[in-house]
């Protein structure tokens, strides 16, 4: 029997725990990707070794479809693994995790297809692949080269599994809401459909743009105050907050193409400054 959604997560937890990873819980803030978690961004900086795995809920307001699209969600989960320095056998370790969740590489077609990763809001980039399983992208596999505008030395290897996609694949369902969440008959629909409908309505129709703009400005200002106080972690949290406000404003369609670059630039400046402060506070620059 194929893994339920929650068993998929538990299996990955066990697997990566056995590889020496710290198993963390999701960061308690709204963010667009698991990469934003400080356990990835801040820990990728400096010389210290680090291994962690965690699930991160991701909110992408513009991807919401009121629960009507079988493949798109405004809120979904990523499974994130970071290993620093990236081990020599990282690909093999990763493939081991696929076998663990029931994907037989001699029966399925697993491929590493070029996909360079870049996050303009984090001032980060890396090289790697999207991993395909029978033509479906199931994981983003990246060797970080820069974060917050700083060179990563040593390099962090980052694996980002798209949990819903992977589960749909393993369970053989065509609609994300048909996923069995556990083995007791609870489906993804039971857990999340109402959330998708309400959050789509909120993000696209209801969210008060003035409040959002205001929150963006306040988060930015607060970030700067934290930087002055030499507190990189709270500063970084405010950058994450500003980033999410920007994403929601995008969904409300109130940011023009011309302004878009300026907002991204603003978030990047905040994130970079927080990274710089982190490096400073940790004494990595010396």
């Amino acid at each position, binding site marked *: 029997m194929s893994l339920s959604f929650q068993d998929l997560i538990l299996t990955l937890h066990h697997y990566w725990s056995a590889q020496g990873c710290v198993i963390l819980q999701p960061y308690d803030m709204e963010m667009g990707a698991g990469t934003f978690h400080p356990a990835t961004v801040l820990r990728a900086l400096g010389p210290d070794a680090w291994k962690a795995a965690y699930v991160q809920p991701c909110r992408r307001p513009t991807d919401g479809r009121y629960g009507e699209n079988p493949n798109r969600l405004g809120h979904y989960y990523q499974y994130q693994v970071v290993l620093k320095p990236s081990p*020599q056998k990282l690909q093999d370790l990763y493939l081991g995790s696929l076998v663990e969740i029931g994907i037989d590489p001699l*029966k399925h*077609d697993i491929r590493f297809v070029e996909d360079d990763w870049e996050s303009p809001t984090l001032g980060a980039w*890396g090289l790697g692949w999207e991993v395909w*399983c029978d*033509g479906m992208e199931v994981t983003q596999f990246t*060797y970080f080269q820069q974060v917050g505008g700083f060179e990563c030395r040593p390099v962090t290897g980052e694996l980002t599994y798209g949990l819903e996609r992977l589960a749909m694949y393993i369970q053989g369902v065509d609609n994300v809401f048909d996923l069995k969440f556990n083995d007791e008959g609870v489906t993804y629909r039971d857990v999340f459909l109402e959330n998708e409908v309400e959050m789509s309505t909120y993000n696209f129709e209801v969210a008060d743009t003035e409040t959002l703009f205001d929150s963006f400005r306040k988060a930015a200002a607060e970030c700067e105050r934290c930087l002055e106080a030499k507190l990189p972690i709270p500063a970084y949290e405010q950058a994450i907050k500003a980033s999410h406000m920007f994403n929601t404003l995008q969904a409300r369609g109130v940011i023009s193409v*011309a302004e878009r670059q300026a907002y991204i630039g603003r978030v990047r400046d905040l994130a970079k400054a927080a990274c710089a402060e982190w490096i400073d506070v940790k004494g990595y620059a010396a």
Partner: protein
Amino acid sequence: MADFLLELLCEEIPARMQAKARNDLARLFAEGVAAAGLETGAIDTHSTPRRLVLIAREVADATEAAREEIKGPRSAAPPQALEGFLRKTGLTREQLEERDGVLFAILERPGRPAADVIAEAIRQIVADFPWPKSMRWGSGSLRWVRPLQGIVAILGDEIVPIEVDGIRSSATTVGHRFHHPGPITIGGADDYIEKLRACHVIVDQDERERLIREGAQAAAKEAGLILLEDEALVVENAGLTEWPMPLLGRFDPDFLDVPREVIVLTMRTNQKYFACLDENADLAAAFVCVANVAASDGGAAIVEGNRRVLAARLADARFFWEQDLKVPLEEQAKKLDQIVFHEKLGTVADKVERVAKLARWLVESGVVAGVDLSQVERSARLAKADLVTGMVGEFPELQGIIGGHLARAQGESNTVADAIRDHYGAPTAPVSVAVSLADKLDTICAFFGIDQKPTGSKDPFALRRAAISSIEIIVRNGLRLSLTEVARGALANRAGQVRESDAAHGLDKTAPEILEFFADRLKVQQRDAGVRHDLIDAVFSLGGEDDFVRLLARVSALQSFVETEDGADLLTAYKRAANILKKENWSGPQVLSSPASQGIPQTGEEDPLVLVDDPILKDAVAEIASGQAGADLPEEKALIAALDLAEPKAAAAVDAEDFTGAMAALASLRRPIDDFFDHVTVNDADPAKRERRLNLLTRFRDAVNRVADFSKIEG
């Protein structure tokens, strides 16, 4: 002599980088060993997603030993000289040879073993490899396209010891990632390819490409279909697989409602699938994917997985298509005022306005003939409307194509739908031509107007491509237009929108820049068509030519002419005449006090008649200029007579755009000019004769130059 094998094993190399990497590897290796003086036979390279392989045949055992003799000071020279020499050569006094009182240093350079040379070359290659993008990994500092995992380097049957950033060469590699993950020991260049084949790796990309090409065709054929061939996709898939297995799958035929281009593009770009056609050449509800594994179930699970991925993508595409169908393009076009074309050039709606105006002008002025103005207007107004559709949002490369489909489905005429579809390319249907040319010229002129010209390798707005495409449209459709006039029109359109005067908008400065830009593009474009750039220069430098159809007719006649014996010979005579005139610093008939005689430096290019505007003097001067006055030798007279005939003939032919006729008129000068050079001494002792003959040569040169500036022609 022995064969050498190199395998650089790494994590998956992007498919698009592999061909260049093979070439770079072969080149760098050949250069590296040649620089050290090591001889090798043929060098072959191969690549898979995980390896770069080089096999060099018949590598010499060592470089040749060399003996060099350096002459030093005399043995009687002061000791400082000797010391200096010893320092320079690194020898001692006893090691020098003395011959006839002179000291010599004999430097013996023993041959270096091949393995040393190769090891050094490989270290250098790995350190400097020109990957388009490279990265670091782990704690190392080496850069490679993706983490480098191993080096196999075997010369004959010996490992060539190499160490790069902690990676040591060995005879061990791995096979297929899943079929044969364990280590394989390689004997050398001779067993490498077959050993890997036994471990499910086909090392040679050409062989994999063949397997994919033939396998995909066979899979389609077996299903009663025809493969839509796509060589780029063959190469890409060969770069993604070590053991390619083409598999055919089917998708729900309901999706075929979606425009064919969308389905093919989704399959091709997103999934790297081949499309299939049925017996009517319609798109079939099938795909061929290329797996990298000989699956234990024969590929059933792989096909099913791929089918589901494709279904999800096509469902997305269909959703957008159905949404877009509901909104008339005319409605969509209204939203174009929300899209910034460029911050200094207004919105796309502004651009549409300019394009419509310019397209109308092209028709009204007769450049594009025989079209219904209202259809041109309609096409121009709708051409950009698909930019706000969901479909183009998802598939930007389908701009135009989507608009064409929507227009047709929404009841626009085929002429309008075709114009929308084709206006990004180089069309031939008149309405499409008017819209397409107007669009491109507007883009080019608008960006030149705000001083955003391409420079060096930078061309962010793809103006060069737009210019090449415009030239194609003009030439292929034989459009007669003055480019300067159109450019001024396009610039004035934009000036009007920002309520600037033409002068403030820099019209006089910008229009000539645009013509020059087009002239450069024309040379590039025509070079590819086999037209010599020097001949284009020869016509351009006559000045004032901005009708490319006429210009190319002239160039083409010129090219035919200079390739004939008459033409080649006349060119030689022309150059001889021009050289004599240059050497004599002859600036034409000396009647009046010329700037030269007043001491003003002359370049020799001046119009000899520039000072002659007195009507009374005109005839006299003309006679002198013709070189006629007092001609005594028959060859002089013959040349004069020939020029008298040829000049008006050539002029009339040029006016009538009969450039072949103009060349024929020039050809008639060949014999007389050759005879002139054979029998007439230009530098006669008699200054009057000398002057007359130089004037005659000037006349000959100028007559030729009026057809084309022969001084620009090479050879």
